[in-house]
C-alpha cells in the first residue's frame, strides 16, 4: 500500500488524535483527572474478588433469612389468604403433626429408598460407561450420538410407557429416576475423563503402563472428584423427579404426600414436606462435598 505523506511526516507516523485535541480544555482536564491513578476497586463489586469470611457467613445467613422474612411478612400481612400462603408457625405445627403420626418418617424413607436405589443403578451404568466413552473414541462414537438424543427426551414423558411395561409397583418409580439421571451422568463422567491431561497418559505409557494401569493409576484417581461432583449435581435432578414418580399409585413418599396435601388444600403440609426435601438435599450435598475433599484434597486448589 502506498500513500504520499507530507514531507515533515516522512519519518514519524502521524500522532493519533488525543482526547485533549477532541474535547474542550475543561472537559479534557476532568477526563484526565478521572483516569490518573485508576479508580478505587470496591471489594464486593469487583469480579472474582474474595470477601472476608465474616461477610460470607453473614450473606449465607441472609440467603435463608431474606426469603423466609419475605414469606412471613407476606403471610402475616393478610394480603394473601392463609389458605394459599400459611404462616411459618402453621407449617411448623403441620410438620410436627406429620412427625408424631409417623407419616413423615415413612414417607421420607420411601422416597429416599427410591432415589437411593434409582440413583445407585444410574451410577452403576454411567460410571463404567462414561469412563469407557471418555477413554476410547470408538466407545464414544458408538454411544454419544444416541445419548445426545435420549437426554433431550423428558423423563416424565416415559411415565405412561413405564406403567404399561412395569405396572404400578416400585419398579416404574425407580426406573423413572434412572431414566431421568443416567444420560446426564454418562456424559458428565465422560467429560471428567476428557479433562485428564493427555500428557499424564503419555507419561504413564512411557513408564510402561498399559490400559489397565493407566485407568488405575491415572484416570480413576484423576476423575474421582469430578465423578462425585457429577453425582452432586444430578442427585438434585433425581429429587426433581420424585413427585412425578410417586404420582404413579404410591402409598407413601414425600412426593405422594405433597400431591395428597394438594388435593385437600393443605398448603402448610406441602410447605413442611418441601422443607424436609430441601434439608435432605442440602445434607447429601454437604456429605458428598466432604467426601470429595477427603479423598481428593488435591482437587480443591
Amino acid at each position, binding site marked *: 500500500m502506498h500513500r504520499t505523506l507530507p514531507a515533515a511526516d516522512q519519518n514519524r507516523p502521524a500522532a493519533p488524535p488525543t482526547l485533549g485535541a477532541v474535547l474542550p480544555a475543561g472537559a479534557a482536564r476532568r477526563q484526565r483527572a478521572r483516569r490518573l491513578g485508576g479508580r478505587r476497586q470496591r471489594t464486593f463489586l469487583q469480579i472474582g474478588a474474595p470477601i472476608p469470611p465474616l461477610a460470607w457467613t453473614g450473606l449465607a445467613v441472609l440467603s435463608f433469612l431474606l426469603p423466609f422474612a419475605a414469606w412471613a411478612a407476606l403471610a402475616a400481612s393478610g394480603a394473601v389468604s392463609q389458605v394459599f400462603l400459611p404462616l411459618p408457625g402453621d407449617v411448623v405445627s403441620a410438620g410436627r403433626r406429620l412427625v408424631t403420626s409417623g407419616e413423615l418418617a415413612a414417607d421420607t424413607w420411601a422416597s429416599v429408598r427410591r432415589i437411593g436405589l434409582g440413583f445407585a443403578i444410574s451410577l452403576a451404568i454411567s460410571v463404567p460407561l462414561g469412563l469407557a466413552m471418555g477413554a476410547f473414541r470408538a466407545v464414544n462414537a458408538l454411544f454419544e450420538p444416541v445419548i445426545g438424543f435420549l437426554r433431550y427426551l423428558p423423563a416424565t414423558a416415559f411415565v405412561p410407557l413405564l406403567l404399561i411395561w412395569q405396572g404400578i409397583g416400585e419398579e416404574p418409580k425407580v426406573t423413572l429416576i434412572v431414566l431421568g439421571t443416567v444420560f446426564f451422568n454418562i456424559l458428565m463422567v465422560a467429560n471428567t475423563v476428557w479433562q485428564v*491431561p493427555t*500428557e*499424564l497418559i*503419555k*507419561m*504413564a*505409557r*512411557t*513408564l*510402561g*503402563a498399559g490400559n489397565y*494401569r493407566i485407568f488405575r*493409576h*491415572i484416570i480413576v*484417581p*484423576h476423575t474421582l472428584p469430578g465423578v462425585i461432583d457429577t453425582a452432586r449435581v444430578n442427585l438434585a435432578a433425581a429429587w426433581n423427579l420424585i413427585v412425578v414418580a410417586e404420582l404413579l399409585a404410591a402409598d407413601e413418599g414425600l412426593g405422594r404426600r405433597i400431591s395428597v396435601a394438594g388435593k385437600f388444600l393443605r398448603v402448610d403440609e406441602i410447605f413442611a414436606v418441601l422443607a424436609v426435601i430441601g434439608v435432605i438435599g442440602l445434607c447429601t450435598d454437604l456429605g458428598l462435598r466432604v467426601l470429595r475433599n477427603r479423598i*481428593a484434597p*488435591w*482437587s480443591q*486448589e
Partner: protein
Amino acid sequence: MSASLEVRDLSKQFVVRGRRVVALEGINLAVRAGEFVSIVGSSGCGKSTLLSILAGLEQPTAGEALIEGRPILGPGPDRGLVFQSYSLLPWRTVAQNVALGLELSGMDRRTMRDVVDYYLEVVGLTAWRDARPSQLSGGMRQRVAIARALAPDPEVLLLDEPFGALDAQTKASMHEFLRSVWQRTGTTIVMVTHDVEEAIYLSERVYVFSAHPGRVREEVRIPFAPERTPALRREPEFFDLRDRIQSLLAAEEAAA
C-alpha cells in the same frame, strides 16, 4: 548404561480436518551413546513430534527410528520422557511420583524405596519426599519429573522443552543440575528446546530444524569441553555460535 539413537529417512504426516500436514520430512540424524544432543527450531518444525516418535508414543509415516540398531516400536523402560508441563500426579507425594515407573515395572517395595531415595538425593529433594507437588516451585516440580524419568534407569532421556515454563534464575540452576545429572548417569540425552543458549550451553551437538515441513537444516557441533561453568555464556565463541544458530532460525522465519 546408555544407548545410541538413529533416525533414517523419517517422515511423519498428519491428517488434520481432512488436510494432510507434513510434520517431518526426510529426517536423518544419529546420537552416540552417552551424548547430549539438542534439537532447536521454531514452533511447527515437528521437533516435539520427533521426540514422541523416539519415545515410541507415535509411529513414523515413513522411515525408521532405531535404538542401538533396533527399531523403536513403542514406549519402553529403555527411554524416559520429561514434558514441559511436569505432568506430576497431584494426589501422590514427591516420593510416590518418583516411584511410579518402578511400581509399574513390578519392583519390590524395599528395592523401590532405595532407588527412590537415591534419585531424590540426585535431584536434591530428599527433604521434600513426603510433600505434594502443589507445595513445590516450578523448578522443584521439574526435578521430580526428571527423577521419575531417571528412576527406571533408562538408557536414553528425552526432554521436551523441559525448562520452558521456568523463570531465568531457576532455568540457569536447572542447567547446572541437568549437566551434573548427565555426567553422573552417563545417560544419552536428547533435548528439544527453542532456547538457543540453553541448547549450546548443555549439548555436544545441536540440530537446527526448519519448519513446514520439519527438516534438519544444519547440524552444529559445540566444541566446548565437558566441564562447563556459567562463565562460558560470556565467551565470544559462545556468542558466535548463538549468532550463527539464531541467524539460521531467523532466515527460516523470513522465508516463512
